[in-house]
């Protein structure tokens, strides 16, 4: 059994007047690929933002051992979260400022998600929704932090591009870190995760080996497979 990297003990989270997470407990070993699945509004984004340190639990405890260093964690937001004043390439290069060959690394990352020179030179507002999503992914791939959080990484992509992106994300996984992927449509993600957490209205209804969770009747019903 690998060492535990992340532990949540009875974590609750409030978003405004909504209780977005109720009593979530889980333990994730180093090197794991964790899927966080649930219908719209079930608390997936809230959980990822807690992991990113953007909010704090209203109750319970969230422990990293050890905590990721500055720049050791990267999140791809559901909304693309790019700066409109910069080109796509400059957006990807931004977290690399000061590193050698920043621009080459940024260009390579864009190429990995299928975006070429011409797309890289454009502003985010001049790109399609799917291209913006891929630029946001490239930004995290270029920075390559050991802990990667992906919120709906393939939403809005056509099926062929989705498969390519899933492969790229698989290869980007860091065996000494952690990859967490959130999606309301878990079908393509189950086989690519080690562990899965299923949320329903903020409540954790399943947590365990991804393959086992995927077979459970209540989980299949939640996502309309039966």
């Amino acid at each position, binding site marked *: 059994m690998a060492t535990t990297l992340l532990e949540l003990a009875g974590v609750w989270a409030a978003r405004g007047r909504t209780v977005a997470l109720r009593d979530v407990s889980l333990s994730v070993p180093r090197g794991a690929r964790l899927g966080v699945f649930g219908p719209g509004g079930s608390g997936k984004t809230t959980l990822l933002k807690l992991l990113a340190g953007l909010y704090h639990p209203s109750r319970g405890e969230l422990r990293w051992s050890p905590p990721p260093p500055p*720049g050791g*964690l990267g*999140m791809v*937001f559901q909304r693309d979260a790019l700066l409109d*004043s910069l080109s796509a390439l400059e957006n990807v290069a931004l977290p690399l*400022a000061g590193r050698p060959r920043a621009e080459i690394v940024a260009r390579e990352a864009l190429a990995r998600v299928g975006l070429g020179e011409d797309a890289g030179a454009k502003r985010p507002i001049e790109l399609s929704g799917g291209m913006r999503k891929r630029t946001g992914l490239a930004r*995290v791939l270029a920075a390559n*932090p050991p802990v990667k959080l992906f919120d709906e990484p393939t939403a809005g992509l056509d099926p062929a591009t989705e498969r390519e992106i899933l492969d790229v994300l698989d290869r980007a996984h860091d065996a000494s870190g952690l990859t967490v992927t959130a999606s309301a449509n878990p079908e393509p993600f189950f086989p690519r995760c080690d562990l899965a957490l299923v949320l329903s209205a903020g409540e954790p209804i399943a947590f365990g080996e991804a393959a086992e969770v995927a077979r459970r009747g209540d989980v299949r019903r939640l996502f309309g497979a039966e």
Partner: protein
Amino acid sequence: MRAFLSASGRLVLRVLRGVGAYALLAGRLLIATPRMDGREWLRTVSIAGVDALPLCLVTAALTGALVVIQTGFYVESYGVTSLVGWGAGYALFHEFAPLIASLALSGRVGAGQASDIAGLRAGEQLPALEALGVDIDRALLAPRFWAIAASVVVLAVIADVVALSASLLVAVGLLGVPPGAFLASVHASLRVADAVPGIVKAAAFGLALGACSLRAGLAAPAEARGVGAAARRSLVATLTAILALDMALTGLL
């Protein structure tokens, strides 16, 4: 009595919190300045300049003309045409040019920066960058702060030139002052050193404008309605700060 005490206590706390917040922001900006992103600075200066220049030019020309028209009565009745150039130049350099430049920038650029920063927080661009370890101060805040401050100074100098030219045109065209006399009066009574207090004022207004607009953007609620709130707060804060600084500096300089 207790109500009065608690109300004044709250007010003192609010003022202290405000001062603390600005001190914190100033500290962040100063620490980030040596390593700030030069391209972001240049980008902001060019946007700020293009945005505020037309308003600045028009107000500067009108103010230059008005200063001469207002003094025209005395000039004609006392025949002191030799003083028009000095009077216009002094008022414009010391008072009007820095005010014109900073007010033109506070409306378009200051409020714009405040709502832009608030929008970047609401749209999660800033949290996303921070989560990736990007130093927001170095990449965005410090360059924008210095760009705003520099723009005020540059626009104030441009306003000096434009307003004085407009004064000259009005003095010559309406009051019949010979152009040579106007220029001689400017030349004889205004030293280069007379431009310094105006530039110092412009720099002070610029720093205040930068700090107030960034702070308004950072303090607004990180959601869609925060964007408009940030713009309004920025306007109120900058106008208050600029006029207060103007009073203080006019006494000192």
